[in-house]
C-alpha cells in the first residue's frame, strides 16, 4: 500500500471525476452470516415443559420395561431356582465335583499320559463288589458311601 501511495505522489493523478473510494463489492460473508443466524431461528425446540404425567406415560410404557421371565422354576430335587431349559446349578455342581474326583483317580491309575486302556470303566463306592457284568472292566474305587443321586442303572 505504501508503494502505491508513493507512485500516486510521483506520477500525475488521472483526471477522472468519481468517488474517492471505489465501491466495495457487497461482502458475501455478511449475507451468509445472516442466513446462518436465520437458520438457527428455525430449529426444533420444546415449546412447553413435559409434565410429570406425560413423562411417566413415556417412561413406564411396556416397550421400555424389562420383560418378566416366565421360564424360572424351582428344581424338583434341591428346590433352588433354575431355568426350565438349563440344568440346576446346584445339582450340576455336585455331579461335576464327583466327576472331577473320579477323573483324578482314573488319571492316577493310568500313570502316564496317553495311556487309556481299551476297556470300560466302572465306579464302585464303599462296600460294593464288582458284579458279574463288570467282569473285564477297569475299576475305580471311591472311599465314600454311594451318593443317592448316583443310581446304579
Amino acid at each position: 500500500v505504501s508503494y502505491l501511495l508513493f507512485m500516486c505522489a510521483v506520477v500525475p493523478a488521472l483526471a477522472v471525476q468519481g468517488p474517492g473510494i471505489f465501491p466495495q463489492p457487497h461482502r458475501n460473508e455478511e449475507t451468509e452470516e445472516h442466513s446462518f443466524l436465520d437458520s438457527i431461528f428455525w430449529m426444533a425446540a420444546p415449546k412447553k415443559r413435559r409434565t410429570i404425567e406425560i413423562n411417566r406415560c413415556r417412561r413406564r410404557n411396556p416397550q421400555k420395561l424389562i420383560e418378566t421371565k416366565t421360564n424360572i422354576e424351582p428344581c424338583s430335587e434341591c428346590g433352588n431356582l433354575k431355568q426350565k431349559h438349563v440344568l440346576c446349578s446346584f445339582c450340576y455342581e455336585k455331579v461335576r465335583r464327583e466327576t472331577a474326583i473320579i477323573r483324578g483317580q482314573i488319571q492316577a491309575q493310568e500313570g502316564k499320559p496317553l495311556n487309556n486302556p481299551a476297556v470300560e470303566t466302572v465306579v464302585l463306592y464303599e462296600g460294593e463288589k464288582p458284579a458279574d457284568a463288570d467282569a473285564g472292566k477297569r475299576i475305580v474305587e471311591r472311599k465314600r458311601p454311594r451318593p443317592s443321586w448316583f443310581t446304579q442303572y
Partner: protein
Amino acid sequence: MRLTLPALIAHGRYGRRMGLGPESRINMLRNILTGLVRHERIETTWARADEVRIYAEKLIGYAKKGDTDEKAMKMASFWLTEKDLVHKLFKVLVPRLGSEQHGYTRVFQIPNRDSLDRAKMAVLELRGNPFPPLVTRQPDSNGTLLNQLLCGYRQEVTRSRAAGGD
C-alpha cells in the same frame, strides 16, 4: 445329517463359523472330539458342543463298519489326535453304542460361564459313561403306600357322593 434343524439351518446355512477359518474350525472341533472320546463328558460352549455332536455321531457311525474297514480307520486316525483313543473307539465305544442307530451323545445346557464373557455353556457326554447321571428321572410316586391309600380314599368319596346324590 442334521441333528437340530432350527439350530443348524439358520438362514439357510449349514454349520457355524468358528475360529480363524474353516480349517481352524475343523481343527478346533477335532480337539474337542478327541477330548470327548477320552473323557466321555466335557464342558464347552453350547455352539461348539452342538457342532462336535454332528462329527461325533458321524465318527461312531463310521467306526461301526469295523476295525478292518479302510475308510473307518482313516476317519478315526484323522479325527482322534491321540492314537490310544482309536483302540478305545473300536473296542469300547462301538460295542457299547452299536445297538442304536443314532443318539450316541447328549447335550445339556448348564448355567453361563463364570468369567467375564458369561458364555452359554453346555455339557456334552457319550451315552453309557461311567460317571454320575446329569439328569435323574423322578421315580413314579403313584406306587407308594400313602399315595395308593389316598387314591382309594378319593374313589370312596366320589362313590359315596354319587350314591348320596342318587
